[in-house]
């Protein structure tokens, strides 16, 4: 019974759907405020039904499969992308009680599942038989290779500090002091997150002005809905990863609870959106250059810093 609840409601399908609808709405509303606009407004309180309508509409629209594509590759990939993007929710300790798979290798599972996602998106671009989609696919692959190295290294720093791969234990052990020690790691994680989620200034794979919509270009209707769902589930996985690894997940100021987890994820989303509203896109070459000459070396340095801090500040033997 509990497993069923976990799969269907929290933190399973319903939760991911609700998150998608709400985050999509929040993104649009927040972005509108930064644009000096209002954003969705007339459908429901503060326009909050708008994204529900948008996503429901996509379900009932015609799903075009263009001529000359491999229909299986074209239609299965969005579904796979959603499944893979949703899986990390099972490994994350949402509250002290809801922790579906309390495995010893939580960090590894999170990192691997997040890491596979761009490859699936590459295949969607590859299967679209469109020059722009293909370019988008190639771009996402390039970006994945360079950004994920830094992402993995940054995500591993808490595991190194606490000496465990279990997300539950990392949360248990985290404190204000550990947050300070991990702060450089958090910054690196955040920058790599922008690259991984294709947010400005690294929104290169789906750069509208350059390659139309990247790998999304040929998708419509239900398939596009699935890809959007995967995108937002991916947002959730990465935000939740940041909250769990660095910010102490559900730990609060006076009491513990999911609300703090949610607020931490929201905080990351707000910072991400503010960057989005004020930073133009850079090019592929600049991204590669930035990633390999600065981000990756810094993440390596960060690991050294974490080890040193563990030894000298926490006083744990190496």
């Amino acid at each position, binding site marked *: 019974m509990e497993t069923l609840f976990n799969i269907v409601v929290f933190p399973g399908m319903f939760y991911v759907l609700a998150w998608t609808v709400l985050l999509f709405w929040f993104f649009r509303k927040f972005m509108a405020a930064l644009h*000096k606009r209002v954003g969705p407004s007339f459908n429901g309180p503060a326009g909050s039904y708008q994204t529900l309508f948008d996503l429901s509409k996509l379900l009932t629209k015609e799903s075009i499969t263009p001529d000359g594509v491999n229909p299986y590759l074209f239609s299965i990939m969005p579904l796979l992308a959603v499944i893979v993007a949703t899986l990390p929710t099972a490994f994350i300790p949402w509250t002290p009680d809801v922790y579906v798979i309390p495995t010893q290798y939580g960090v590894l599972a999170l990192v691997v599942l997040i890491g596979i996602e761009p490859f699936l998106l590459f295949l969607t671009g590859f299967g679209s038989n469109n020059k722009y989609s293909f370019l988008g696919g190639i771009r996402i692959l390039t970006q994945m290779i360079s950004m994920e190295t830094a992402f993995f290294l940054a995500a591993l720093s808490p595991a190194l500090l606490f000496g465990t791969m279990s997300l539950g234990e990392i949360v248990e052990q985290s404190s204000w002091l550990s947050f300070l020690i991990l702060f450089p790691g958090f910054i690196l994680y955040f920058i790599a997150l922008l690259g991984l989620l294709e947010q400005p200034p690294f929104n290169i794979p789906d750069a509208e002005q350059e390659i139309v919509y990247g790998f999304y270009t040929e998708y419509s209707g239900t398939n596009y809905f699935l890809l959007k769902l995967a995108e937002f589930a991916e947002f959730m996985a990465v935000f939740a990863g940041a909250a769990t690894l660095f910010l102490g997940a559900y730990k609060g100021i006076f009491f513990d609870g999911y609300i703090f987890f949610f607020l931490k994820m929201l905080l990351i989303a707000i910072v991400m959106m503010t960057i989005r509203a004020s930073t133009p*896109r850079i090019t592929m070459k600049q991204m590669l250059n930035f990633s390999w000459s600065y981000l990756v070396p810094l993440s390596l340095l960060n690991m050294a810093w974490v080890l040193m801090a563990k030894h000298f500040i926490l006083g744990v033997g190496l």
Partner: protein
Amino acid sequence: MQDLRKALSAHEILSVEVYKTMWLKVRIDSHDLLAVAQTLKDEGFIAISTVSPTDFLEEDRMEMNYFFENYTTKRNCWLKCDIPRDIEACEIDSITPMFPGANWHEREAYSMFGVRFRGHPDLRPIIVSQDFYDKTPFRKDFDWDAHEANTVENIQQIVDAFKEEQEINEEHLDASSSEMILNWGPTHPASGPIRLKVHCDGEDIISIDPDIGFVWRALEHLVTKKDFVGAIVAVERLCFMDNINSMVGYCQAVEEIADVEITEFAKWMRVLLGEVSRISSHAMGMGGFYNAMGLHTVGMWNMDIREYFLDFLESYSGARIATAAIEPGGVRYGLQMNMLDELQKALDKFDATKDDIKTIFVNNPTMKVRAAKKGIITAKEVESFALCGVVARSSGVKIDVRIDEPYAAYAQVKMDYVVQKEGSAKDRLSTLFGELEQSIDIIKQAKRHIEAEIENGNFNPTKDHMVKVPKKLPKGEAISRVEWSRGEVLMHLVTDDKAKSPYRLKMKAPSFNHTMMLNKMLQGETLSDIPLIFGSLYICQGDLDR
């Protein structure tokens, strides 16, 4: 000017006269064209503004007009020569090898009038769609009605040509490499109605061939069907972003032929309205620059400011954009003082937002990383390709028609060239913002002046705005230049005797020259740079195609 006269006297000159103090109007024989052009080039007349044929059906001749400009001395030369009108013999030497800026202008003359240019490197039709190929639509004896009768077949012709081109595209490519041809536009989020045929190898661009003419409305032909006042409807649709200044250019040409001097008040109103219009265009230009890099915030903020300036235009003329506010003889409406309150609101709005935009967007570090080294145009290229306006000034070339050849009341306005040094995409953004501030300053000056003169009783804002211009104009010819928001617009107006409508109006619009640069600038760059460079060149498809 004397030097030029002396230099030209080596050639056989049919007539020569000084025109409007800045211009030397020279008529030569068409065989001497290349030699005279060489002399002009040696004298520093490197930029060619445009090539404009005029078709005189009754006199059975085609008159070629060349407008050469010297960016250093600001003196210009207007070269005229006759060639036979007969389609077989309608030939002249091409000056493109000498003046690369003439390239597309000669192609345009070829597609519109059938003038063939000997020695032109790439004489293909431009702007016109496939159904007009080899048909010379702007000649006076072209039968438009007969052409229109079979619209469906004409469209079929365009479709067939497109499909054929797509098939040929793939054939010539190296199958073992990643070469391909991308159609960048017209259904593209950043392109607008233009198609760039991008020949690229993966992300690297090998060459670009712009395909233009998607909004070709044949404006230059349209005006000949309207009377002199009605023509402003066509002229202002050159590009809606800044329509006032193009109307000013046309009206000045009409007033010159009619020999009418407009009132001082109307001159100041032209300055005021023109600058408001320039602001509304520059605000969108800055937005377009950032939209090309995927950042819409500055576009939105500028749109917010722009609305207030459009409010002023609306209170003045009743329309937000299609104002039709400038007419031969002055400005269309009188001024009521509460309209200026509307303007004051807009100025306050700009002053309140200006600092934010400057700190966040004009000095944006990521933008500098992205754009500081891209799309560089040297001062030399500016001259040889006759670039103008924002693009030219960003490369450090000091040209601005408002200062060089002051029109309306610009002679009394205090202003200076807004220039940058390097001519990169980033510099063009800085120039745009600099000019935005400059326009605000000019508006403030004009507003103060108008208010003071009304106070003194020198201006009567409800009566002074118009002087009468006769409906029928004498035979004549005039050119007028204005500094449009994108650069110099040159209007060449020809009228017949007792004419009710223009005989020929050539509009030289700046985007045409700027688009010509795309291939040169984008070769060897990557796909990511297309929107950036395209956006920074501040191109409007409206005046590109006309």
